[in-house]
């Protein structure tokens, strides 16, 4: 056998499990049909939250999520940022109806109980705000609110979380292959023996043999498992987010949508994000686009508390598929009802292990459980997991950006962006500038992206396509859609990865296509003028 385990899917579950398996000495092959994080993981809200939603239904989930959130902070402190949230009260206690009072009381108990778990993830306890305090903190809220409670959450760059788990796994000997799709799980006499794969860029095909196949293909996993006769009980839910061009609040604001669901508006770097919708989706998972209704739903919900967003420039709408467990499976040793590990043996596919559901926030614990199961399937003793102790790449000794900016020739905001993305490896990125001052060129002012970072990611972070740089270092993701940076990024990547001129052009077109899909439904106002400019700037392609 070539490997001990083949992992299908480079989302947070696949990459997290690859890292754990590799750290425990297993021979791992990770196959991802596109790039790390392109599925639910990268398109999630990126909140390493403690699962306050589960407070009422399952406190074990909350405790687990809080504890694991604390672990992620220890191993990747650079990737995380604190987001204080406020949950405004829309009615007053006295004079409120009985129902409003009950909701009011429940919120406080709910948030108060959550406080007990906050130390697990170094969150601050909640506070109550009077109306005047609330408006001082958040003047953009609509008038007539009666106060709020605060709660503390953490955000993360989910794409980098996936990529760093994968790169870490590689460091422990795992083989990574992006843009490689698993076409078929191979089986013999009721046992899997590996997979058949196809490289979608080169067309190359091959087989990789292993006694265990871990199906972490997210919303695609039912189809993959079904081909082996295994039923993965999943209920896919489409979730749409909007990105707005600037900060419309200083704090995250918890909102109630028109249909009573919870939503949020949160500041994110220099932008804001509104999320999310949640609707059943049984279409093709490769064909997701935000609809006009979804966009309206999000805007209306956000405008109900922060009216200013109605004037906002929406820079993109992005979607992912939640992979919620549909029903109880047969195996109840799952850690929680939030995720399940399904063994294919009863369906005649022994060695095929599938994961359904789970949160980004508890990916590490999910990966630990999966790795334990993989070791058992391999007939080995379960060995200790160390993924909560050993830092992810760059997670050790994260440098102070200001100090770094003094030491090396970069502006402090640029240094901050690089430290956020690369942690201690920011030094390696910036060392490239010391060796070649040309790489000190700021490719995108908005994202604080340096030419050196593009080159670094291409060399060290499994970049096979130009669009991978959207996820590694936010190339061409901002409101300008890559007006300044796309062609320059393509040239830099092309040089670093020895692409031909034709390949560079094709990659550039593919990068622009990816942005177009996200902006097409939201073209309005200034953003539409920006799109026209972008199309013109890249429209000089009429081949005579």
């Amino acid at each position, binding site marked *: 056998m070539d490997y001990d385990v083949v992992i299908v899917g480079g989302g947070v579950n696949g990459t997290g499990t690859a890292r754990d398996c590799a750290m425990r000495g297993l021979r791992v092959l990770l196959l991802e049909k596109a790039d790390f994080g392109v599925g639910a993981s990268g398109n999630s809200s990126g909140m390493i939250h403690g699962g306050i939603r589960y407070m009422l239904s399952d406190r074990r989930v909350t405790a687990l999520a809080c504890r694991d959130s604390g672990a992620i902070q220890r191993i990747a402190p650079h990737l995380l940022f604190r987001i204080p949230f406020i949950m405004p009260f829309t009615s007053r206690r006295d004079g409120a109806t009985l129902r409003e009072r009950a909701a009011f009381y429940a919120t406080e108990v709910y948030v108060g109980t959550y406080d007990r778990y906050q130390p697990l993830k170094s969150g601050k306890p909640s506070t109550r705000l009077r109306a005047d305090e609330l408006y001082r903190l958040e003047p953009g809220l609509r008038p007539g609110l009666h106060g709020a409670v605060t709660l503390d959450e953490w955000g993360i760059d989910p794409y980098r979380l996936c990529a760093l788990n994968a790169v870490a796994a590689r460091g422990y000997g795992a083989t990574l292959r992006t843009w490689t799709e698993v076409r078929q799980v191979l089986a013999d006499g009721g046992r899997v023996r590996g997979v058949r794969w196809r490289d979608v860029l080169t067309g190359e095909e091959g087989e990789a043999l292993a006694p265990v196949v871990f199906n972490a293909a997210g919303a695609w996993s039912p189809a993959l498992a079904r081909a082996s006769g295994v039923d993965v009980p999943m209920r896919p839910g489409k979730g749409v987010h909007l990105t707005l061009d600037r900060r419309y609040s200083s704090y995250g604001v918890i909102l109630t949508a028109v249909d009573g669901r919870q939503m949020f508006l949160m500041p994110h770097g220099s932008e804001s994000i509104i999320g999310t919708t949640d609707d059943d989706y049984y279409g093709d998972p490769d064909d997701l686009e935000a609809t006009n209704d979804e966009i309206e739903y999000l805007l209306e919900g956000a405008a109900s508390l922060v009216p200013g967003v109605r004037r906002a420039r929406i820079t993109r709408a992005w979607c992912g598929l939640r992979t919620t467990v549909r029903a109880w499976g047969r195996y109840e040793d799952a850690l929680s009802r939030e995720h399940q590990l399904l063994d294919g043996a009863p369906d005649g596919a022994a060695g095929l292990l599938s994961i359904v559901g789970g949160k980004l926030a508890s990916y590490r614990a999910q990966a630990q459980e999966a790795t334990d199961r993989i070791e058992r399937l391999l007939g080995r003793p379960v060995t200790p997991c160390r993924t909560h102790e050993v830092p992810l790449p760059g997670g050790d000794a994260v440098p102070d950006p200001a100090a770094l900016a003094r030491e090396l020739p970069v502006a402090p905001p640029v240094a901050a962006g690089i430290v956020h993305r690369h942690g201690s490896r920011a030094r390696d990125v910036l060392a490239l500038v010391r060796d070649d*001052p040309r790489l000190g060129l700021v490719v995108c002012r908005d994202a604080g992206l340096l030419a050196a970072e593009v080159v670094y990611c291409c060399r060290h972070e499994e970049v096979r396509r130009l669009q991978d740089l959207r996820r590694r270092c936010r190339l061409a993701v901002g409101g300008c859609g890559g*007006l300044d940076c796309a*062609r*320059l990024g393509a040239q830099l990547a092309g040089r670093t990865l020895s692409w031909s001129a034709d390949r560079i052009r094709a990659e550039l077109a593919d990068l622009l296509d990816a942005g177009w899909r996200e902006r*097409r439904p939201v073209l309005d106002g200034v953003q539409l003028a920006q799109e*026209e400019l972008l199309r*013109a700037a*890249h*429209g*000089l392609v009429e081949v005579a």
Partner: protein
Amino acid sequence: MTPTPGLLEVDVLVIGAGMAGAMAALAARDAGATVAVASRAPGATALSSGAVGVAPDPTASPDEPLAWLRAPVEAARRLAARRPDHPYAAVGVAGLWRLGEALRFAARQLEPLLAPPLERPRLLATPAGNAVRAALCQRSMDAGDLLAVRGPLLVCGFAGHLAFDAALVAAGLARYTPRGGPEVGDAEVALPFDDPAARPHELARALEPPGAAERLGEALRIPAGALGAGAILLPPVLGLDPAARVPERIAAAAGMPVAETLSDVPSVPGLRLHAALEARLRVAGVARVTGEAAGAPAPGRAVEIGGTVVRAETWILASGRFVGGGIARRGALVEPALGLPVQAAEGREAGVHLARRPAASLTVRDRRAPQPLLSAGLRVDAALRPVDDRGRPVHPRLLAAGAVIGGHEQATDGSGLGVAILTGFLAGRAAARRGA
């Protein structure tokens, strides 16, 4: 009544000072009318590549020898025949027939900047390594015409200037060699000054002072000699002010013809074009008003723009598309200055009623396909009068010119500045006739 802060009475008021507005004003002025031009800010013209595209040839085959390129006017006719909604079709056969005259008029008006038109289009390189056809180009680009370069073409970048990748451009242009284009080589030379982070307009300025262009020309002799080059192609940063004669000075020092490529954004050649139009308007005695026309009444009535009250019998709306601000989408497509109806198309349907459709239904998934949303704009009759949803002129003395007229995607269909020149010229001439 308080006295009006300054009343300007002219025959023609032009709103917008891009290529279309400037051409309209100059054509009307040239025909004897008094003209005022009001504008808010630079528009698409100042961002353009700097060369005038008139029309791609819809019937050309990609394998044809380059020498078979059709004349711009003929290409425009073929385009009009295939696209009944295109402004070239809207102006009618008689209008389109004057395209050659309009181009010559533009070249004469911008004589210091533009090279004289040829019978055939020029084939010019972009910084992405493609070749596009141009009916008119700046003098700084002329020697890069792939159909006229004698001997190999050396594409040369500047060391430290990452934005222009000479090897990439050369590899792209080599695709044209088998069809009659020149042999291509590439090189990199050090700039006579050192600033790796300089932006294009900073580089352009830095080449202007005495000695700078000459030192660059000297440095080019080495790689040009090694290739046996017949001409040198450089990034589009050869001076901001044409009076500094940067390309000519580099060429003299290098001992061979030198050209720059077309530009992407930000565009030094676009800035040059903008400056040249402004200078020409001044010389021609056109009154300039800076400010925004918003909620304006109809021609013949006084309108206040940026503190000046202007009265003119004829108005020409040349306010551009989305970049210029002549058309906007604010939940629905609108024409902000005069509130004229905006026409959009969806599938086989077209009309004013589509202006409220969601953005997604006015676009198609394939980014490279024509996008109806980006072709939205005013509909005009053959006399360039904007029409309402029933096809009737909104006002007998209100004309439109340039990208504010819909039916073409100004940014990508290769006819943007050509449409601006033709419709600007026709509108200006027509307005002068009415004014007289």
